[in-house]
């Protein structure tokens, strides 16, 4: 029998080599979720920005909200591989929950209204996800796009409630914890949103390094295999979609609170596309791509639009084309490659 040829005798040397290989492999899996030193960088920078640009915190808050929105997309696009062009739907539901609660029902307390916004957008994610996530690829792309447009048009139809594209008037946002008002420079909100972003990051980080997170990656990598090993694929996707919707709704709620303003424009296709561009620019499927992408995008948008109010999108477009052509893993991938190159150079 040929079997005996491969059954090399288990000499002590062989056994030792195998057990050390086993230990190394187990070690890798066990330690994979450990925090790396560089993961502190975004937080150091976010805190530093507070002291370096004290008069630009209103803009800084928008960057933090952009990061949160992009992070929520990363869970479903970057990890689970769900392609969506309707993520603004949940951002919009979050924003409108806060806007309507505040302006129509006088519920101005920011934290409770944000929590309600999270719940409502998560429920919207659960319901739409349940139906839409049976589809994949282009079909899913069109359906997610359509879902956002449907809700936007419904809002437009009842513009007596929503204020249509002019927005909800008269939002009186309450003080945070009854103490902190949103000052002219937005410093309080910067801290508030920063803390919430940290919580969101922590939760998402737990999820992506959990067995469930691994299963999402498996669905992205090879869905046929996932079915074959008995994975409840649909349930897993709907769960991720619901969580992402809740976080997107949170970002939307914070947007409405920090700007005291919400129009039906939040549901725009532009908004869905923008968050996707941010994420692709930064790099998908690694959490930190959202940080880099949202920051670079929003800073460029801000600076370029001051430089040339009519032509600024050219710069963003150019950057995106360059990213997709030459840095498929986004700016984060570019940084990783550069570090590898430098390290190799240092060795030789």
């Amino acid at each position, binding site marked *: 029998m040929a079997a005996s040829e491969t059954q090399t005798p288990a000499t002590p040397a062989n056994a030792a080599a195998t057990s050390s290989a086993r230990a190394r492999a*187990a070690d890798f899996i066990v330690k994979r979720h450990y925090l790396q030193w560089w993961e502190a960088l975004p937080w150091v920078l976010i805190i530093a920005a507070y002291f370096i640009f004290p008069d630009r915190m209103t803009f800084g808050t928008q960057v933090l909200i952009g990061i949160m929105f992009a992070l929520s997309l990363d869970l479903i696009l970057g990890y689970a591989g769900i392609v969506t062009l309707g993520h603004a739907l949940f951002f919009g539901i979050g924003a409108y929950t806060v806007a309507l609660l505040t302006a129509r029902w006088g519920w101005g307390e920011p934290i409770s209204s944000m929590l309600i916004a999270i719940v409502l957008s998560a429920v919207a994610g659960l319901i739409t996800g349940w139906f839409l996530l049976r589809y994949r690829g282009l079909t899913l792309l069109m359906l997610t796009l359509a879902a956002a447009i449907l809700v936007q048009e419904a809002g437009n139809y009842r513009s007596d409630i929503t204020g249509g594209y002019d927005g909800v008037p008269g939002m009186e946002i309450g003080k945070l914890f009854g103490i902190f008002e949103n000052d002219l420079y937005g410093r309080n909100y910067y801290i508030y949103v920063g803390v919430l972003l940290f919580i969101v990051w922590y939760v998402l980080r*737990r*999820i992506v390094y*959990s*067995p469930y*997170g*691994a299963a999402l990656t498996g669905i992205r990598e090879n869905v046929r295999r996932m079915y*074959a090993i008995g994975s409840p694929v649909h349930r897993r996707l709907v769960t991720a979609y619901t969580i992402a919707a809740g976080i997107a709704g949170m970002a939307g709620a914070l947007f409405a609170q920090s700007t005291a303003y919400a129009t039906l424009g939040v549901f725009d296709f532009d908004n869905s596309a923008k968050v996707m561009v941010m994420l692709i620019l930064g790099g998908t499927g690694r959490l930190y791509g959202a940080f880099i992408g949202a920051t670079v995008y929003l800073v460029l948008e801000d600076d370029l639009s001051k430089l040339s109010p009519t032509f600024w999108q050219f710069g963003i477009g150019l950057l995106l084309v360059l990213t997709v052509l030459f840095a498929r893993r986004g700016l984060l991938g570019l940084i990783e490659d550069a570090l590898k190159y430098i390290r190799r150079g240092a060795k030789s």
Partner: protein
Amino acid sequence: MTAALQVEKLNRSFGALPVTRDVDLTLERGARHALIGPNGAGKTTLVNLITGVLKPHSGRVLLNGQDITSTSQTERARRGLARTFQINQLFRGLTVLENIVMAIGERDGENNNLWRPAGAKPSVIEEALDHLESLRLVDDALKLIRELPYGRQRLVEIAIALAQKPRVLLLDEPAAGVPSSESHLILDVVAALDPDIAVLIIEHDMDVVFRFAKEITVLVQGAVFTHGTPEQIMKDEQVRAVYLGEEGHKAGERSHG
């Protein structure tokens, strides 16, 4: 004793083309059954019907006596039905070890956990490493699938299926695409499978089939042409004509294209 897997009068067509016609097939517990037939005979389609990738137009599939004809692919896998694919279906961007851990995680419900770190359960990792060790893949445990030679990838296919702890295992050409110098490795693994698992193997290499199988079913143009022990099949003149001869190849090509 109820059969591990029973297929009764299974029918399926793609448009006007019938690809599975009244197929009956029984795998007892611990069976070593080979499914042979010319290209386009509907062998892979039959595997897809049994595992639930495709739905039959009529007929029944029973797993350990239970009718699973209308249950989902996921549920069938959970009840102990595993398969390998003719063309690798692996998580190419993940390590070999992660591929196996994935299968164990879905089997045990580990993957329902959103909060605990993936490496927190030593028993899962140890089991995954045991599977790798039995297929001599431990040294490749931390390599990404896409960095692995094709022959080794084929072994991972089998390792994933074994990590599901199946009661019925369907092997769809496990050594396909592997140079013959390496294919004996894979076939040794197949020969050494747990005797309790019922195994159905699709294979073109007649040496392998006659060495491995206790029973052989010959499929031609979607229907069971004949069925018997290796000795009976070897002696069967019609099988020689249809399967091994020119005629079979022509028939196969016609139904293929």
